[in-house]
């Protein structure tokens, strides 16, 4: 049976992990490769590396890091952050990334989705969507939630799918960082209207929250992504997976 995926997300700046990590003793807390291996050993199903470097130098470092990750990690990984052209994506895929995620750049220029999909296949295109609910409408935001676009979540998700997105990663900016749980009803609706997998992100505080967003009675998401709850050891992946299994959610143990 196809399992639901648990995906830790690592923010990378100038080739180093940013957020504090204290869930496991590492030789170098800042080394993304070592952290990635630790997550992989714990049972993470995939990894996401988000480049938040602001400089050209930082970006070059990131490409080198992707090569090291690909050489050392034997589970799939996605890279994102600042990919604004098909060529940007090509460089990272050639470096060994399995998938790339586009966000603001796709809102600005939706053709980047079909551009990458037609050249490298839909399976490697993750379209990340950030949105906030305003007067009952989920409005798509860019630049880390700081700017509103003219797009509405559900129609944009469907458009992204028709352009060739292989997966949709939706983050509710209203829930992100609250640790009060995911926007389950939104994932449930997305999962109902899309024929591609939906990854939930934003709001995880407990294993129960992840259980809710993945369950058939809840958000029906195909995968759950989280960052700080994993990095700070508030949720440990082996215990999380056991709890999910106890609730009848198929996971890779």
């Amino acid at each position, binding site marked *: *049976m*196809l*399992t639901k995926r648990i995906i830790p997300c690592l923010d990378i700046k100038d080739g180093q992990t940013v957020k504090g990590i204290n869930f496991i003793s590492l030789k170098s807390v800042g080394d993304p490769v070592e952290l990635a291996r630790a997550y992989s050993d714990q049972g993470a199903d995939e990894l996401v590396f988000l480049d938040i470097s602001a400089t050209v130098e930082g970006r070059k470092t990131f490409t080198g890091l992707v090569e090291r990750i*690909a050489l050392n990690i034997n*589970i799939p990984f996605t890279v994102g952050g600042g990919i604004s052209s098909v060529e940007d994506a090509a460089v990272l895929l*050639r470096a060994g990334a399995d998938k790339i995620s586009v966000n603001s750049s796709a809102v600005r220029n939706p053709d980047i989705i079909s551009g990458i999909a037609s050249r490298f*296949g*839909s399976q490697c295109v993750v379209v990340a969507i950030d949105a906030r609910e305003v007067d009952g409408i989920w409005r798509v935001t860019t630049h880390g939630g700081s700017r509103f676009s003219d797009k509405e979540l559900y129609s944009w998700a469907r458009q992204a799918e028709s352009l060739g997105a292989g997966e949709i990663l939706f983050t509710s900016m209203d829930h992100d960082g609250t640790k009060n749980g995911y926007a389950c009803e939104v994932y449930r609706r997305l999962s109902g209207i899309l024929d*591609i997998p939906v990854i939930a992100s934003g709001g995880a505080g407990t294993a129960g929250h992840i259980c809710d967003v993945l369950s058939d009675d809840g958000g029906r998401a195909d995968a759950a992504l989280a960052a700080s709850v994993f990095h700070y050891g508030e949720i440990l992946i082996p215990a999380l997976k056991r709890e999910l299994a106890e609730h009848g959610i198929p996971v890779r143990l």
Partner: protein
Amino acid sequence: MIGIIDYGAGNIRSVENALKRLGAGYVLASDIETLSGCDRLLLPGVGEARWAMDRLREKGLADFIRGTSKPLLGICLGMQLLCSWSEEGDVDCLGIMENKVRHFRSVTPENVRLKIPHVGWNSISSLKTDLFRDVPDGAYMYFVHSYCADIGPDTIAVTEYGTRFSSALRKGNFMGCQFHPEKSGDMGERILAAFLRTGF
């Protein structure tokens, strides 16, 4: 020396990286002379079946592959190419195994709602042959595909997604897996290691 058959299909970087991790020497080649000198062959593949078969025929590789007696492992599309026919482009494949490859939508009832592609970790069972000697029945592997091979006498692993399909095949020296062992964690690497070490 492992010969990775390079016919221009998709990203083979991950296969190369896995061989590096396993300490296996390899060469990427599309010419028959180089490939003939290798002990084992890998047929990778990400892409479309008709396009891939056209490339293999163009380079004379289709006949070479059919005629080889070396252990050969096809991965993902590479496994599908070992079958007799694929619905993807309605193309005759290498015909080493009798299995036919069809789209998931063609082999699942209309009322079954499936997300396509089949992407993620799924279990393999009914395992046969020493390719799986270090892997327990029910082990999870990483899949990414929209077409699947039916079950036949050469099926050595079965997976279920809307339907039961062949997640691995074996006929003599020819082996194939639909999943990506190079992306399937330690369990996947055990399968690659078994392919590299076993005298088939």
